[in-house]
């Protein structure tokens, strides 16, 4: 581990040592065991049609550190997790190793007589390797028990067969979570301090003028296409991408919806409506980036992947509600002469944010490889003059042509869409908010 990281971590560690104990009844648990999803191409599930009969793989999550139970959720922060997939075709073979990027969370649902169900949500998948998608694995849940007593203890040892498209597999858990006892584990600190209360600004109220805009939005049928190939050089072997060539197509059906944009400005005293709208046109109001509604309801992802000496892989996945139209910046409110818009990815209905919209049952690059990951995978971008926000009708052109490189794959993505915006509502109001409390 890096020395700098260590120093920052040590600082955080020292802060943690001297912080008071949390008031909420969260519990610390010590894990033992692992959670394993293993799968293989199954002829009875049509692996031959997809081209994955020679695939077998496993995702192993091995918590090896304190696990926090918070609000019915186990947070497996920094849990080592490895995806290993072996492909054995008549003319070639390869091993793909990848890591899931997100922090696994286990949602616990209490049942009767101490029974619990533990669901890993949508983060578990085969990553860039061939295997189940997050949507395949999201419904799976471990069953176990919670012991009674002052401190929680969970026995999540169970085994569950599953099917995932052309794959069959087994979810196996040997995970047991026991109360964390620093002494028995060689705890490090015997004292805590309540010496120093946190400071902060004194609460005060501010006056804010707010403009709410609502648009009717129409998106014609469009698509994002990605052509990719395994990178040259030795490192393509890590993802079994050497010699691979493929295409991904995320098709967005024509759809309609509504989009809300909020613009605000702090003021000393109330402004007349006309002046406030003039300020908005001039780009002097701060736009709060809002996620619009799920715009395309029938996204379909299709992939073809070929490798020398291997069976072609071809698969199609429906991704309902996976693409959103965002208006304004995603993370930081801004003011200015143009308003950014983006078609970005969102989680599927079961999993929340973070789902990889380029995942089929074949191997291939991830959405973060192709679209970037900060502030989130963006399929297409565009912008509108701020002065046009108050126009009755506007058209917005989004495009997403760009190259990408690594890890394992490089390629190019393309796609464009022309979106029509019709302003249907303008609301102006003054609100008083309290800050610093």
């Amino acid at each position, binding site marked *: 581990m890096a020395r700098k990281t260590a120093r920052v971590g040590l600082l955080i560690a020292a802060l943690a040592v001297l912080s008071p104990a949390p008031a909420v009844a969260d519990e610390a648990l010590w894990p033992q065991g692992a959670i394993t999803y293993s799968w293989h191409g199954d002829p009875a599930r049509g692996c031959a049609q997809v081209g994955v009969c020679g695939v077998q793989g496993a995702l192993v999550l091995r918590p090896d550190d304190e696990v926090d139970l918070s609000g019915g959720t186990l947070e497996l922060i920094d849990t080592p997790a490895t995806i290993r997939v*072996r492909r054995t075709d008549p003319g070639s073979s390869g091993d793909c190793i990848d890591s899931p990027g997100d922090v696994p969370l286990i949602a616990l649902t209490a049942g009767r007589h101490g029974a619990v169900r533990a669901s890993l949500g949508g983060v578990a998948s085969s990553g860039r390797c061939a295997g189940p998608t997050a949507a395949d694995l999201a419904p799976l849940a471990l069953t176990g028990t919670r012991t009674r007593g002052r401190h929680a203890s969970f026995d999540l040892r169970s085994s569950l067969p599953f099917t995932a498209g052309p794959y069959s597999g087994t979810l196996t858990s040997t995970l047991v979570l026991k109360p964390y006892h620093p002494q028995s584990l060689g705890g490090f600190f015997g004292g805590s301090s309540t010496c120093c209360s946190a400071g902060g600004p004194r609460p005060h109220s501010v006056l804010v003028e707010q403009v709410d805009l609502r648009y009717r939005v129409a998106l014609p049928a469009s698509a994002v296409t990605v052509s990719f190939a395994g990178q040259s050089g030795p490192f393509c072997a890590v993802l079994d991408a050497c010699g691979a060539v493929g295409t991904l197509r995320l098709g967005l059906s024509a759809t309609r919806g509504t989009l809300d944009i909020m613009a605000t400005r702090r003021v000393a005293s109330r402004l007349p409506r006309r002046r406030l709208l003039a300020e908005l046109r001039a780009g002097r109001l701060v736009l709060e980036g809002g996620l619009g509604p799920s715009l395309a309801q029938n996204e379909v992802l299709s992939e073809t992947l070929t490798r020398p000496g291997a069976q072609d892989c071809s698969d199609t996945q429906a991704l309902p509600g996976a693409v959103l139209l965002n208006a304004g910046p995603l993370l930081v409110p801004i003011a200015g002469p143009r308003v950014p818009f983006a078609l970005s990815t969102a989680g599927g209905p079961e999993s929340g944010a973070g789902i990889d919209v380029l995942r089929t049952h074949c191997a291939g690059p991830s959405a973060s490889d192709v679209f970037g990951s900060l502030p989130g995978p963006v399929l297409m971008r565009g912008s509108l003059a701020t002065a046009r926000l108050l126009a009755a009708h506007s058209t917005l052109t989004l495009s997403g042509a760009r190259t990408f490189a690594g890890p394992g794959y490089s390629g190019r993505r393309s796609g464009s869409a022309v979106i029509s915006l019709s302003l249907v509502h303008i609301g102006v109001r003054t609100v008083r908010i309290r800050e610093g409390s």
Partner: protein
Amino acid sequence: MRKLLPATLIALALAAAPAAAQPFPLTSIALLFGDPQGFQTLRTTDLPVRVTGGITVTFAGSAAAGCAARGVCGYHGTLLYDPAGGGDITIQSYVSAGRRHRAVALEPAPLDARGRSAYTWTEVQRDIAGGSAGECADEQASGGAEARMPHGAAIIALADLLSPTRCAGPLPSDLADALPELVLNASELAHGRRTVDLHSVRRFAGGGFAGTVTSTLVLALRTPRKLDFQVPGPRPRYRLVTEAVKIIAASGAVTERFQGSSDQGVCVLLDSCGAAGTLTLAPSPLGATGLISAIGPARRPLRDFLTALGLARGGRVRGIAVSGDVVWNAGGTVSERFSQTGSCLDHATLGQGILVLGLTRTRLSAVLAAAPPRARCPGPVAPLAGGIAAGTVPRAELGAARITVTLNGGPSLDDDGYTISTSGRVSLTLRRGRAVARIFTGPRF
């Protein structure tokens, strides 16, 4: 979060362990705030580095390199090191025992936007005459590397960037002579803005394996920047009392018995199906030094701190945080016996280790941890958390000048493709030094 995560602290402490040339133990508290025993960081500079290329090693069991004696003649494979874009060279100037020193380390960048950091990947085929064949593929995160500092220059051995995996293969130390070294003089460390081409192709033979090591690494040094770890806001006064400790006796060993996972869906990917073996870890931290520290608000009387350290009675210990660690770079041995269709027998040096000390209300606890012990045979990469062994002694014994703590092997572990049970014990005797106090200002906690 009030308690520290054990694995986090152990990993941090290992990462912060001193370079060989560093004459003073760097504990977590000392690194943060300086230490009344004489350590003080003067300046920390970060030199960002963009790293392209990588390291490729092709290897096979070699009779000339002694594969028969180790039982690795049937293994051949490829090892890759991917720097995943780069990292930083950290240059730390510090004073220890009245003299100025400098420590330099190359660190990989944390996870990039695509969720990857520097890693070592291996793919190894097992093809033993008369036995069945198998294939192991594994990947381990790669850590940083400390520099040697002769005559003001920093020399970083690239082999230190490699991490052993669960597959059979040469250890990083076997490859050290076949890999170039990164050599940076004082001017380059101070000003950066230089490209270092480390292309090379060399043969290696040793440890039962022979093969070719190819480096295509190119490092582009950027402009250095001073790091400031200060936390903004009020800076209250704290009292820090530290006590030097030294390991003066060490004995015993811990044995990890492992076997391949019974889950065929997992063991086949690591070629661990039907495998069994032992890893015997015999640490030898003799002479290693460290600190036990007590830290709290400066207004609290010294007696409270001394009581927390077991050096006085009658003080109030609530609100005083006590921690300690003893770190050593390498010492002891790891011996492995592995059997599958054939058998493999190997031994290697046990890497960096740490003894983490803590105080509860009634006991002094100790955890012994080490860099994942690996030999050249296939086998588990034992998880770090929880340590190799742990033990406690009554807090009442803190008053003694020497403390002997017996550490027993930890509980059963799950490793990818392997299950591990540990046994055995290690006994360590610590001699306590003098306690020194200091008042300092720090961030508000």
